């Protein structure tokens, strides 16, 4: 089901502030694409424009085209709600619904689409999604307990289970490991490896080793200074970016970080 994403001439605004300027890129299907760059360069902003979450912020808007599976996301007739069902998202801080059990958290998205879910079908979805998120063995005996009772890493995997339960075509992750310890991080990285056979994954990370470990392609964003718009400097296969990048700016950023 995974689909590639075509972005052309994308400008992203907060009110009058141009945060990201003229991005052109093609994100391949069934593969992991990492977005890296210094903080404030617009990685999150760009990521959130891919599922139209950007416009949930008052005054925020987008110019340009994003095409997923031949469908232009920002065409006037397109409902952002439909877009978000097709393009799932995992946030920086784990955010399971605090009043819901683990079981209900996984089903939350599905219940929106399909009110009358049979118990047996629901059980199946929960098991499949939790297995897909490598969480099943840890929680199968306490599905009725609140999702907030899990550890941070488990909560984040619960959020991934919740996102894949609705079977999106694309999965966006905004620094999904930045609030987690190394063991949980490694669990999530393993999970990303498994998920890419079924989903198109775009992951923002501030950790370049992580980008190198999990992604096939890497896009480097940069800004000229505060108040200036962020720009896509270079997008290339991850191996190339981390060995012989095309742009001196990429080289400087990567070598600067690695010391």
């Amino acid at each position, binding site marked *: 089901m995974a689909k590639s994403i075509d972005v052309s001439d994308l400008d992203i605004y907060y009110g009058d502030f141009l945060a990201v300027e003229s991005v052109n890129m093609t994100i391949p299907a069934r593969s992991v694409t990492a977005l890296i760059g210094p903080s404030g360069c617009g990685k999150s902003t760009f990521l959130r424009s891919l*599922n139209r*979450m950007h416009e*949930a912020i*008052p005054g925020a808007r987008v110019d340009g085209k994003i095409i997923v599976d031949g469908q232009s996301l920002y065409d006037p007739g397109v409902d952002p*709600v*439909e877009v*978000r*069902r097709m393009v*799932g*998202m995992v*946030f920086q*801080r784990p*955010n*399971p*619904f*605090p*009043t*819901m059990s683990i079981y209900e958290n996984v089903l*939350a*998205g599905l219940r*929106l*689409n399909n009110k009358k879910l049979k118990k047996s079908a629901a059980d199946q979805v929960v098991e499949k999604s939790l297995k897909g998120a490598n969480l099943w063995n840890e929680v199968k005996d306490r599905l009725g*307990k*609140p999702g907030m009772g899990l550890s941070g890493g488990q909560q984040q995997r619960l*959020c991934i289970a*919740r*996102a894949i339960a*609705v079977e999106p075509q694309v999965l966006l992750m905004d620094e999904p490991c930045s609030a987690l310890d190394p063991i949980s991080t490694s669990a999530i990285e393993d999970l990303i490896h498994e998920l890419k056979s079924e989903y198109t994954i775009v992951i923002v990370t501030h950790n370049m080793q992580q980008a190198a470990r999990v992604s096939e392609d890497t896009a480097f964003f940069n800004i000229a200074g505060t108040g200036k718009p962020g720009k896509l400097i270079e997008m290339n296969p991850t191996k190339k970016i981390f060995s012989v990048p095309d742009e001196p700016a990429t080289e400087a950023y990567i070598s600067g970080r690695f010391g």
Partner: protein
Amino acid sequence: MTTTPAAPPAARPKRRQGDRIFAGLSRGAGLFILVALAGVFVFLAIEGIPGLTQPSSFYAPQASTFIGYVTPLLFGTILAAVIAVIIAAPLSFGIALVISHYAPRSIAVPAAYVVDLLAAVPSVVFGLWGINVLARKVAPGYEWLYEHLGFIPFFAGPPSTTGRTILTAGIVLAIMILPIITAISREIFAQTPRLHQEAALALGATRWEMVRLTVFPYAKSGMVSAVMLGLGRALGETMAVAMVLSAGGGITFNLISSSNPASIASNIANNYKEGTPGKVAVLIATGLVLFLVTFLVNFAARWLVGRSERRMAR
């Protein structure tokens, strides 16, 4: 509650002046509330208990004992307040939600301001409006309800021609408690963590689904508190009810006739001035009943809220 274990005073961590003053002030404020409440209770008990056992003429014409006297009043009080809450709560939640989640800022801010302003209108003004405007306007409506829905006990009639019924009083009360319920729920709706709201949106929730999934669960206990504060105000409201309601005596759910009892507070207001000492004691005793009922209602609500929170925490 300082629970410093027994240790030599010298080993105590140094406490700063500001901390000590603040601790004293807040403890004092907390104590003050308790003392005030206890004081009110003691006053009502001392002055009111003789009112429980006056000669039967003091309870005339409707009754001959205190229980017989206070029961219809208590019924009227609760009925009017419940009508008010049934009307005001959904309306308030709706307004609060529009202000916090639907309207653009340019509309939300003035709208919130106007609703707050409503709270500053004195209850006498609401009373006057209730008699002179609302009661007249709704009287034909009661006629219609009686003709078309008369089979429902609430509208059994005969409809009051002046419109000064318990339903009218309830509507006036609803408008009076609307600002407080709206203000509190608005604040709490607006505090719903962005993280959870975005989680819902990212799953493909519409705005209303997002509200149902995240805002309401987050705000639930605050909404109950808001309704309780509104209910408390409606139970105790005096002038508006005293002015609007033309009281009969019976206990009835017939909302559009003029046979409904007054409320405790409005009955006190109407009779206090010309009261003899015995009559005043009776009135204060009814006040004691109102005090206890309000207390019980609040406790029940806290318990309900606490129970649902405890269940989630497990």
